């Protein structure tokens, strides 16, 4: 429920609404955008990063939270743990039960592989489940994979790896069709035409959605299908280290049963990491939209095994995280709210940025509005700006919010705010890991037989991902990883298992006086605090 002071400020927003309905805020020029990012984007904050001292990316500057992780020692005693006692022996081991992992498992099984999917929480407790807004694919007549390519490249600052973007845009319609055939209930017109809208940085309306439960709909459908296909799933058993064989091929993982606190060895001919993102590291002490298990475990274990990272210094802040009420600070207000016409407005009821600029730009503009121009609205955790949600009802008709954004509506109404009638308060929140483990278009890493798909991977989105390209990414590369890993597994001969790479990494840490902490951290620790 809003405070009386906030209610008074809402009147200001209401007063300018009619005028704003007529006005389109000018888009940023390329130069303005660069300057805005340089001055206000958290990635450019002084003191937020330090050079990494160890591993394939040694010397690169990364946010402290990542460096802390990579400079931590292993959970396991590489000499003490017996690798002879094999609990699971499979063709393909998939690590991570989100969208990317499940798509990979399905495709690997389709190729005839014996698949094991291990995951840290329950199958489906993942960022995928939380995605509200949508999934991109150029499948309308006025659109093409080439336009999609251009949008993704521009959004990523042209840092994206071309082969990966090509795979992304080329497979996009194929993936949507796959999901459709699995029974995903995309929002459609009565004749079957997909209902698609804009997302930040898109030149065509190519955002497909399922109300605002798009990720949930995809996740639960894939999970149901995995269960129908009888794919083996082990929950609450995160991978805490990769296992290699004496020839340097990736050959499985050490799992940690969170409930019995036992280590278990899973041997596999090929391994797919699909452990998702890292919001729960709270880079810059920022709140996050991410699920409880987003702690970059996959990055840590792959890095120790010799995989290279890319663009991990580029963190995506979602411009519209909840700034009020306090109970849900940091949670996502989907971009679809802006897609449907809601504007960002300061304390004086004025627009200050075109609402559908790329996320990095909108985030920076909000930070500028609050920090420099002092036109933010004070909230207990700092400040926020208005997102004028009632405009949606004016533009698209009464009841649109409850119909199109039921999850959002529910989230607010639980705390006494009716977003169909009152604007909501937002501020940037830590949202997405733009970079990750470097892969090629076959989802391969530089470590033999190690594949990565989804948010854990890097290169697809350059330095800034567009909304709707991540859900797409997990399906495109999840499928590619699953298929390729299964085919590869048919020819793999495994040698003797070893954790030599872990031992060496620990030694190197010790030499440099590092390794006081332990990683992966698996779960954040909020005991005794009010956080997350």
């Amino acid at each position, binding site marked *: 429920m809003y405070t009386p002071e906030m209610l008074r400020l809402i009147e200001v927003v209401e007063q300018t609404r009619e005028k704003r309905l007529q006005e389109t805020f000018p888009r940023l020029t390329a130069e303005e955008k660069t300057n805005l990012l340089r001055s206000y984007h958290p990635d450019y904050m002084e003191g937020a990063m330090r050079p990494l001292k160890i591993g394939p990316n040694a010397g690169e500057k990364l946010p402290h939270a990542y460096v802390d992780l990579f400079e931590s020692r292993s959970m396991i005693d590489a000499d003490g743990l017996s690798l002879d006692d094999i609990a699971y022996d499979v063709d393909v081991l998939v690590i991570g039960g989100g969208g990317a992992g499940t798509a990979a498992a399905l495709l690997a099984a389709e190729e005839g592989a014996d698949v094991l999917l291990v995951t840290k929480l329950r199958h489906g407790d993942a960022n995928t*489940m939380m995605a509200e807004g949508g999934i991109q694919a150029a499948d309308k007549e006025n659109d093409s994979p080439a336009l999609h390519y251009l949008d993704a490249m521009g959004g990523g600052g042209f840092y994206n790896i071309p082969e990966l973007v090509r795979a992304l845009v080329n497979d996009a319609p194929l993936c949507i069709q796959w999901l*459709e055939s699995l*029974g995903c209930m995309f929002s459609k017109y009565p004749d079957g035409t997909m209902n698609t809208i804009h997302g930040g940085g898109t030149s065509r309306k190519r955002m497909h959605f399922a109300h605002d439960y798009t990720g949930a709909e995809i996740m639960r459908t894939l999970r149901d299908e995995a269960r129908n296909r009888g794919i083996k799933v082990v929950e609450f058993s995160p991978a805490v280290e990769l296992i290699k064989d004496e020839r340097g091929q990736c050959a499985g993982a050490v799992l940690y049963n969170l409930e019995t606190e036992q280590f278990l060895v899973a041997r596999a001919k090929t391994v797919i990491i699909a452990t998702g993102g890292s919001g729960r590291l709270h880079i810059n002490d920022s709140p996050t939209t991410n699920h409880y298990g987003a702690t970059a475990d996959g990055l840590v274990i792959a890095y120790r095994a010799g995989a290279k990272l890319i663009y991990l210094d580029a963190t995506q802040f979602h411009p519209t995280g909840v700034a009020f009420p306090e*109970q849900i600070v940091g949670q996502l207000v989907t971009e679809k709210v802006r897609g449907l016409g809601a504007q960002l407005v300061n304390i004086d009821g004025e627009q200050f940025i075109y609402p559908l600029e790329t996320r990095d730009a909108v985030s920076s503009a909000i930070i500028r509005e609050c920090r420099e121009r002092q036109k933010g609205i004070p909230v207990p955790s700092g400040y926020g700006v208005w997102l004028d949600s009632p405009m949606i009802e004016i533009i698209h008709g009464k009841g649109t919010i409850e119909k199109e954004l039921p999850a959002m509506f529910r989230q607010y109404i639980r705390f006494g705010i009716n977003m169909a009638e009152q604007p909501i308060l937002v501020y940037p929140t830590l949202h997405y890991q733009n970079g990750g483990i470097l892969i090629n278009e076959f989802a391969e890493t530089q470590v033999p037989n190690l594949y990565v798909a989804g948010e854990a991977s890097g290169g697809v989105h350059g330095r800034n991902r567009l909304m709707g390209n991540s859900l797409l990414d997990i399906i495109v590369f999840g499928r590619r990883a699953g298929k390729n890993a299964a085919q590869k597994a048919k020819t793999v001969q495994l040698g003797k298992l070893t954790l030599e790479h872990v031992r060496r990494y620990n030694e190197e840490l010790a030499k440099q006086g590092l390794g006081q902490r332990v990683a992966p951290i698996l*779960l954040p620790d909020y005991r005794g605090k009010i956080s997350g």
Partner: protein
Amino acid sequence: MTAEKKTVSIYVMGKQSEVPYGVTIMKAMEYAGYRFIRGCGCRGGFCGACGTVYRKPGNFRLKVGLACATMVEDGMHLTQIPFYPANKAVYNLEALEPTLGTLLKYYPEITRCLGCNQCTRICPQELPVMNYIATAQRGDIEATAHQSFDCIMCGLCASRCPAEIVQYNVGILARRLYGRHIAPRAKHLAERVDEIRAGKFDAELDRLMQMSKEELQKLYNARDIEQ
């Protein structure tokens, strides 16, 4: 929501803790020293991991909520139900027909619904659960699909059902039947897939891939944007 008291007393599985006023059950439990393994997933009302049952003093009603979306109240006695056993039918979606017969084949127990409405009362998403089982019972798959769409599969309804129905699994079967067999297919999508398979866009993509950053940037800045 004016806070007279700065803290409230809650009882987690009987054990008392003083926690700040106005926070969610999830954050309060963490504040009280718990570190979740089960019972916590998305932290935002999407995954259904954090189903919690509670009672308030002086009220016989058993209440439920998502720990991540329900505020603590003074004197609340609570426990989480992070897991509830459920039978899930295994099927080959493609081969199924979207009929009442299919629903009854996999979940014959839906005809046992007594209409007690406990499921609707308990659903943290406030879905018309009894009603979507009723529509399933009469083979209205489309209605079941739409009415159950916002289900987060938390399992609370099944935990209370005297007819031992697993409502959310009936829901997902109906949704998948609807999405696969009833909703009309997107024609433009099928056409685009054919075009891609035929290599229609390959040359253009090849060309874009060869371009320098500057060339791409020029194209990007000049692209027209659909209104």
